[in-house]
């Protein structure tokens, strides 16, 4: 079982990533062998998110409630362009909308790419979260993410991404079509 390390501020000083054999799943192979990844990465891998979102797009009715609720919770107003998940549908091509959510990767490229160590694993949920005090909006994380699930907001320039709402995602609670679910990882 994982025990939380003392202090959660990621540092830039590299140490070798532990290639924990228990740490399977997406991304782990990307990490292994990278010589100078920051501590934060080690911690993120050590601290897999306790859960992650799953979207069954085939059920999606394109109502956008998830985007609206997400932005309302995180921004205090309804602004879907700053939602932490995205819903896209071309009415003339797509059978159903495509719902994209952050996977809370075991080897989070966003976290690894951040030159300021502003992305870390949340102490309670392990969600990969952005520290607004450290982020300078450089966008390295946006380039690094394979899934397009981290973005930089214009005013103020800050990266934003899904933080799993402290383990009780509002998008899941409000989705009327049961597209979204919050899957808990089995404890190791």
């Amino acid at each position, binding site marked *: 079982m994982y025990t939380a390390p003392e202090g959660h501020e990621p540092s830039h000083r590299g140490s070798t990533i532990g290639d924990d054999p228990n740490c399977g799943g997406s991304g782990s192979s990307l990490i292994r062998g990278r010589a100078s990844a920051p501590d934060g990465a080690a911690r993120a891998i050590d601290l897999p998110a306790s859960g992650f979102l799953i979207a069954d797009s085939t059920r999606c009715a394109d109502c956008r409630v998830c985007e609206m609720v997400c932005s309302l919770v995180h921004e205090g107003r309804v602004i879907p362009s700053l939602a932490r998940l995205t819903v896209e549908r071309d009415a003339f091509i797509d059978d159903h909308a495509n719902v994209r959510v952050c996977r809370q990767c075991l080897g989070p490229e966003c976290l690894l790419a951040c030159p300021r160590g502003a992305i870390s694993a949340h102490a309670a949920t392990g969600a990969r979260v952005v520290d607004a005090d450290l982020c300078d909006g450089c966008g390295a994380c946006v380039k690094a993410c394979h899934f397009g699930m981290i973005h930089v907001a214009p005013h103020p320039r800050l990266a934003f991404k899904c933080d799993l709402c402290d383990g009780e995602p509002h998008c899941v609670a*409000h989705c009327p079509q049961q597209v979204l679910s919050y899957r808990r990882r089995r404890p190791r």
Partner: protein
Amino acid sequence: MSGGWAGRLLRVDLTTRRIVTEPTDRYLAYVGGTGIAARIYLDEVDPGTGPFDPANLLILMTGPLAGTPSPTSGRATFYGKSPVGHPDPVCRPSSIGGSLGAELKYAGFDGVIIGGASLTPVYLWVQDGAAELRDAADLWGLDTFETQRTLLRRHDRRAAVASIGPSGENLGRLAAIVHGTGFASGLSGFGAVMGSKKLKALGVRGTGAVDVADPARLLAAVRRGTEQVYRADDPPRMTGSRGSGRAYGGAEEFVARYSVGVLACHACPVACQGVFRVPGSPLGADSCAWPHALGVAEFPRGVEGWKAVWDVNTLVNRLGLSSYEVTEGYAFVVRLRDAGLIDEQSSGLPLRGDPRELVKALAHQIAHRRGLGDCLAEGLPRAAEQIGGAARHLVSSRGWPILLPSDDARTNGTMALLPTVGAFVPYNDGWSLWGYYGGSIHLPLSDRRETLAAAEIARVTERVLGDARALDASTLGGKAEAVRRAQSYRMLADSIGFCTWVLPLDCGYYAGDLAGDEEVLAELYSAVTGVETDQGGLLRLGERIATLQRLQGIRQGYHSREKDLSALDAKVFGEPHSESPFPGGVVDLAGLGAELERYYELCGWDARTGVPLASTLHRLGMDDVADRLPA
């Protein structure tokens, strides 16, 4: 902090190509949607203005809740002088779903006021606080799907585009404005108004915000509202046209074979549209309107029939027609054919061939105004006049479609007053009031009718509609208060931007009490806007807007006591119906007149003329329009 409204309106003059913005604040007493649009129209447009005059305004207006997750708040309203009304065109609202309204709010506008007329085809593009008119020469003649796809590719794939098809370009009086594959403003002929202004399309993309006064309270209210219409263990009965299939029968196999998903308007938990991929037809989605084509009795039954219906539906949407226009038009053509009034040569239609081909040929004819379609594009009452002779007796007097046999006023006391009242407050027809009046408790009640005690039905009816006899088809009594209340609700829904089909479900389908959670709407409204109100307060707003609409109709010569009564087809007073519960099988004109007077009194209108009283305007906080009362 307050929220909801964007605070700005976009004003576009197509003649001068000038685009300006102006504040929304001074109209807020009329909420949004129909209310604000009607207020602007009353202020600015001469009542005698024709629907195709450049001076006619076409107003697209959202409500304060549009763009928020409030359940069913995704509807916006088009408003202006509609070419459909007969003999006198009148101002009407016609709402549209999809994401058009929400996207407009995110772009920073509560509404768009479109006046004037362009000499050459143009389209309006609105994006994040800016707007421009662009040349649409290359789009003119395209169908609504092609137009939208072109603009989405050209500008932004995430935009919302609404467009007219050939029918609107050719000023078909029932032409629709189509958004997506199946969202439409379909019953007021605003596609033709756009066509008269040479406005081919309008597209909107916004990445901005809608402010919310109390986010936590809104989230709680959204949950509370959604729970009325949705339950995890019982997927909503209307989702994905399943309700339609159930209502019309025989659709199960079609749905099982061709359904690929469901589709909702912005913020709607019900998702009434089904997405179908049928070989030979383009991908499409549509809600309960499309199976009405099953009214085409000659279509084959079973899956083949449904495929034909779907095919017609997609064609209707692409051509920018109204589906009722085509199915009613088909019935009319068959009556003309059987009466020997038309033949294949004079009509240019395959009258004796496969009915599926006839319906499609008719749709093309109407959209392009060829052959018989040229006069049918004027709407049935005008077409009947043009054809003359016996054709006049084959349509109802004001030309609103008569939908189902059960809606015949002679067999149904509710429907006796509704079409009349539907015309009082100029709406599409009695049917649209039914959306609240009947739909509100019709759905929750009809599904459980067999297990409910009569006393429970009466209690629910009385609480929602104010009179226990409101749904009793065997009497004209007890309808006035119900109609007055339904009309306030309807106006309110169209002004806030709620769906008039689902809104009533907000107060009831899955609620513990079938009469529903009547405070949930006020809770949503207060949480978003910061304006504290309750259900009574909201209904007073609805009453204010209904009175404004009444005043507008009177100024435009559409309403008077006599005209209200004439909205019913003359035959319901003369020709007996064998299944009628009324003495003699006809509607009792004196009894209807008495109920009408009672309704006027309840509304605070002059019982003899139906004109709102000055004291009523004062009571409703409408002194600002008192100078518009007829002398």
